[in-house]
């Protein structure tokens, strides 16, 4: 396995808050890396820093030998690193089809071709029947799925997924897990997944990265991380 993404001393500060402290780790090509940590640990901040939504104050993010830091978000996206947002972000007053078509404009010069590609993508995610519905008229689970479909249409090599399962019921979570693993295996997309649903995350992740107060406290196989004393302490707290 080779590293597809390598973070080197990524630091993020918001005023007095040191949100990411010297974060360095490697993501291996083809893996699903789960990202865990208590609220405020810096998980979403980390994702925002990688794609440049909120660039870090220092550090490097190496992707295929190129530093992503300092590049505009749409450049990072076209290089092959995409992200979905913690709060579902779809274009509400736009059809489901066009929501995805926007993202395939980069690969298809003609709008007609972009829509065809989008239609194809919707079938993979089970949303084809809603193609002509406005995104504001579908359910929350469908909108989460739609945002993923939009990101995957970009044909990224690495996809950062920020809490796509929040608010989904058990059945919907299982469907989502199946789709994520097949996107990873069949379409060869390396996944970084932030998730509070531990059961779901442990099931699909090859490795788990644990963050606490902006620091990496563990990076290992799921069963090892879940028994790591520092991780347990971060989640449950320890009596003096």
């Amino acid at each position, binding site marked *: 396995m080779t590293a597809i993404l390598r973070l080197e001393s990524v630091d993020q500060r918001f005023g007095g808050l040191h949100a990411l402290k010297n974060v360095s780790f490697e993501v291996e090509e083809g893996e699903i890396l789960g990202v865990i940590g208590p609220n405020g640990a810096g998980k979403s901040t980390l994702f925002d820093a990688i*794609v440049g*939504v909120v660039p870090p104050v220092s550090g490097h993010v190496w992707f295929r030998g190129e530093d992503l830091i300092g590049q*505009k*978000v*749409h450049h990072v*996206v*076209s290089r092959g690193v*995409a*992200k*979905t*947002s913690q*709060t*579902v*972000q*779809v*274009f*509400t*007053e*736009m059809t489901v089809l*066009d929501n995805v*078509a*926007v*993202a395939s*404009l*980069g690969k298809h*010069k*003609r*709008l007609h071709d*972009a*829509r065809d590609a989008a*239609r194809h993508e919707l*079938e993979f995610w*089970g949303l*084809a*029947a*809603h*193609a*002509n*519905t*406005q995104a*504001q*008229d*579908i*359910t*929350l689970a*469908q*909108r989460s799925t739609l*945002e993923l479909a*939009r*990101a995957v249409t*970009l044909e990224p090599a690495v996809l950062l997924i920020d809490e796509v399962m929040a608010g989904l019921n058990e059945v919907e979570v299982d469907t989502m897990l199946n789709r994520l693993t097949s996107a990873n295996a069949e379409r060869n997309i390396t996944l970084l997944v932030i998730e509070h649903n531990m059961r779901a995350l442990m099931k699909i992740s090859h490795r788990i990265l644990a963050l606490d107060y902006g620091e990496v406290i563990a990076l290992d196989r799921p069963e090892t991380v879940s028994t790591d004393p520092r991780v347990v302490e971060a989640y449950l707290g320890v009596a003096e």
Partner: protein
Amino acid sequence: MSVSAEQGAPERPSKPARGDKVPALVLMAVAVLALFLAPLYLTNEYHVRILTLVCIFGAASVGWNLLGGYANQVSLGHAVFFGIGAYAVVIFQEKYELSPWLAMPAGVLVSVLVGLVIGWPTFQLSGHYFALGTLALLQVFHIVANSWEGLTEGSAGISLPILESGIWNLQFDGPAPLLYISAGLLVASLAAARWVRYSRLGLELDAIRLNPQAATLAGVDLFRAKMKAMLISAVIVSLAGSVYASLLQFLDPETAFAWNTSINLALFAIVGGIRHWWGPALGALLLIPLAEWASLTLTGNLAALAQLMYGALLVLLILVQPRGIGGLLDKVWRRFTVSKPTESKPTASTP
């Protein structure tokens, strides 16, 4: 589409992407036909002139809407392009005795260059700051026009000499020919606006309007898309300004770079509906005659009342129907065509 509905939500029959736009197109064709026949029926020259103003400002507002409406980048500086187009005509015709037809491309060229220069700093701003930034630039042009007397004759303004009447000089004996030219401009602007709306640029601008951050994450180059919209819109507004100068046969900095023009371009679009290519034209068609009528019927001490009523009416409209008449029609359309999913509607996802 052969996939059957797998969820409980009944789907409205799939239709071509432009299907529901056909009625708008038919209505527009009827309106344009009426416009061209109007001079035959309107005996009052004043009415023809109002209709001409509707066409000129309607076209300019349609142009404004490409950036201000489609992408929701509300510019209050678009009178800059209007003024440049207008000044091109009077400077060419008064100083060099050159036809307005030669001035128009020159005005367009300058407007595009100015658009490129304006876009770079102002697109770094968002929301209200963008509006204020563009408004500030308008003031700059106003000051320059006042001070650069060698070119604009300053605040005294430029009156066009009376030349041989005809299409070449855009001076006519009656009001009808200029109405036709203005109507032609309006139709061309509408065609351009409609083309943009359903192009890939239109989709990108729609994404920017609805959620700029999601748009960048979807790979849209915000700066590039906004700049394209700015330049197309600059061309249209500049041409409208040129025709306006020919209508007035006079121009001073107050008229050319009026903040009132900027406000009106935005207003017509907002009242008519910014999501639609025809919205701004509809807004101009309603508001310009209304404003003229109010200022005619309420004179003397009541003149202030006319302004007040006009303002109150607009405030009321924005409060009741913030998406304009186009938005109202959308709502009605949706009520008839979309059946909501059976489960309760999930909470809004917009941040």
